[in-house]
């Protein structure tokens, strides 16, 4: 019998940018295995001449004039940000590892 595929939850969590505690890692690894096992029959689908469906149904393309529109004011857009500065910017902490060091 074919060996079930294993996927490393730590690697996936890093890609998904989701912090997991060690307990969660252990628990969710088992559940991720179960969910991938449930979907495993998809890997045996053999439909070489079938096109994948991205949208189930469409009424044709929707065109509009290429005019820029302002839907929201800056004030509206900043109102929900947890940290802002000078009512103009969203504030975030240091992005680069150390001053002057590009990583």
């Amino acid at each position, binding site marked *: 019998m074919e060996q079930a595929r294993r996927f490393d939850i730590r690697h996936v969590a890093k890609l998904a940018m989701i912090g997991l505690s060690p307990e969660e890692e252990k628990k969710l690894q088992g559940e*991720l295995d179960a969910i991938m096992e449930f979907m495993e029959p*998809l890997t045996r689908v053999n439909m070489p001449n079938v096109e994948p469906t991205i*949208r189930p149904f469409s009424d044709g393309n929707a065109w509009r004039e290429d005019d820029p529109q302002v839907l929201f004011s800056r004030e509206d857009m900043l109102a929900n940000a947890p940290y802002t500065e000078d009512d103009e910017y969203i504030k975030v902490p240091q992005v680069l590892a150390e001053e002057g060091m590009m990583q």
Partner: protein
Amino acid sequence: MSVDVKRLTIHQIADDLAAGKYSCVELAQFYLERIQQVEPLVHAFCKYDGKDLLRKAAEADARRAAGKQLSPYDGILLGMKDNISVKGQSCSCASQTLLGYNPPFNATLVTCLESKGFIPFGRMNMDEFAMGSTTRSSVYGPTSNPWGLEYFPGGSSGGSAAAVGAAELPAAIGSDTGGSIRQPAAFCGVYGLKPTYGRVSRYGIAAMASSLDQGGPLTRDVIDAAILLESMSGFDPLDAMTLHDSLTGLADAVKNTDAGFLKGLRVGLVKEYMNWSELEPACRKAVENAVELLKSHGAEIIEVDLPTTLLATQAYFAIMMAEASTNLERIDGIRYGSQEPGKRLNDIYLNSRGKFGENTKLRLLAGTLIITKQCYQDYFVNAQKVRTRLVQEFREIFKKCDILLTPTSPTMPGRKDAPPSLKFQADFYGVDCNLAANCAISVPAEITDDGMPVGIQFIAAPKKDEFLLKMVRAYELCRPLKEFIPNL
């Protein structure tokens, strides 16, 4: 005066308001009293603002007094699932990660309903980010089923369904990605309509799986479903997938349908659905009884095959989780929602997104995995091919029949205190319609000896929403049981 809110529908309220039986403010008070009475037991709301409701109801009364009502429905309150944006109201998708978020805009469906005078009232409980079928994964705590408080109401639109079932509201709006309107509607003894994909604009409904998501009403009868669908559907420049035709006149057309509509109707029964091993006897019996009823009114029953449905739940999960994982990348704790501390930007992302519930995390992780290079072809693309095959099979089926009759859920609602489990089967009768863009509705059919309601599902081809609702109106008129009111 006092009114029995348990028996009120939108069209009844509209008639009463027009006849001056009560005012919009009195109507609001009837419901606020009912909420005070049963909400501690049901817990269908995340939040609500009674003062805001009374203020808006007074405005509606003033418009009526001046002969300037916006429609016959001006001043009627509606619940909104907590993933639908209403300007000035919180919208958390029942997630800790979005606590404190107040959208600066209305969802298009809300703008449409407000233009008719409907009052968006209350944030209805749901599974976190609409992922689930029990309404137990909400940051606000679980909702109870009004027909048996120890049972869950279904999900993810469980708060919307429970509130309408418990008569805390005349109707509510939910969203359906794989049965999330229809299954809780069945569990709570109300009507739940998933319109054709694109019928209702998705703009302002927090995106979960964009190729599957659709908003729709939960109501106490089919005329109300038609009223709300007519009011909130239509082309929206802000959602390129919306359909171009309008449903003007839908509610009247449904109201004027009689039982004669069933004569000669070709009703399909899908063999794979009826033969499925997980189908519980009560859910099967409700369909079988409906078959006999439809036959006795002149409908023709045709058995049809849908072989690809046996892979559709797998395909649904692959597509839903992949789309959800990309849609929910926007939840980062920076621009809106709740931020967890972190030394660097990356730490903020990890810590803030670490506050997703376990169920949500699992689905986002699996979705992320499915679209990695390692899995993309085998899982995601193959799922989309299964989807194509399913669409083709439905197309063939709808050449032979006008409508399909199926169970809504394979099971009756489970107990709230049962341990959560990875049960993919719960969605078996729901997901096909989202994958294939069909319109579908869950209709209360029976009440079991234990006193729980059972729903059945009718499905029509894409864009046949009017036909579907007319057919259900005819069924409703023939159905032996007329009232679905819990003992609460």
